[in-house]
């Protein structure tokens, strides 16, 4: 689960540029020898013997007049097996510019931020998993023109 704070939008050329700062706290369960099982239906082993790494990414999904579906990756991280599986990042700025294809960010009330990850095995299938819990963020109706980033 995470919470985050939306900032403002600014026009660049002709497209909206959005700025979002966010916090991420995530707990990705690390099985020590892959043999433990959790009977709590909300937790499960992600890092087992065949998992080399997880590619985590925070994506923003929204709809605009121009495009029915837009998805933009704001931030990503590679988590190798053995890395600390608990994420606690505060006040993060997006790693990539959040440009819209057009001006669909201004006044857009429903930008959904989701944390997902790609499981990279030592050998085998490459699944994409979406974390439970997502946050909706609205953008304001006006542009900010002078704030530095």
């Amino acid at each position, binding site marked *: 689960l995470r919470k985050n704070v939306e900032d403002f939008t600014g026009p660049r050329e002709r497209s909206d540029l959005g700025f979002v700062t966010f916090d991420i706290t995530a707990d990705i369960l690390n099985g020590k020898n892959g043999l433990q099982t959790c009977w709590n239906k909300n937790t499960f082993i992600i890092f087992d013997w065949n998992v080399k790494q997880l590619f985590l990414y925070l994506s923003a999904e929204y709809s605009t007049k121009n495009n029915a579906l*837009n998805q933009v990756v704001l931030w990503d991280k590679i988590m190798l097996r053995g890395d600390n599986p608990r994420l606690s990042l505060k006040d993060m700025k997006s790693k990539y510019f959040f440009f819209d294809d057009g001006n669909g960010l201004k006044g857009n009330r429903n930008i959904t931020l989701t944390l997902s990850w790609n499981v990279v095995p030592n050998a085998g299938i490459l699944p994409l998993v979406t974390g439970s819990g997502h946050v909706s963020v609205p953008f304001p109706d006006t542009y900010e023109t002078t704030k530095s980033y």
Partner: protein
Amino acid sequence: AAAAAMLSLDFLDDVRRMNKRQLYYQVLNFGMIVSSALMIWKGLMVVTGSESPIVVVLSGSMEPAFHRGDLLFLTNRIEDPIRVGEIVVFRIEGREIPIVHRVLKIHEKQNGDIKFLTKGDNNAVDDRGLYKQGQHWLEKKDVVGRARGFVPYIGIVTILMNDYPKFKYAVLFLLGLFVLVHRE
């Protein structure tokens, strides 16, 4: 050394002893093996929907997930929508070499038309610099397939055969020799 000389003579004797019919039989056998391999490959193309269902990773731009020489299994089904985070293999118009990178951004219209941007995990910037002059986005038609599974290291043989053509000829020659001479 004497023993080795004897063995090679026996080997040549075997070949001479084969009469014409047996030789034709071996050639047909060889043809069947090649046809079966081709059929399996075509079958894979149909099942996965991709013109190139198995590709070898050629660069280090997706490390540490994939390294040069890893083998990727692709599907390219139209029903599977392109979404961020997926690993796609695409070709840039006019270039032969397929690139394996991750989808960073998508903009999809109501009717399903989609344009998307990619980036290699190990690269600092997105792929816009790699696209054709004036091209800012990739489209469905540029996609060879989506990576669904992978096996490490095995593709190194293909890279070796590409980089060292003598190695490729040696491998093909030995294979051909083996199949022709082997009696089964």
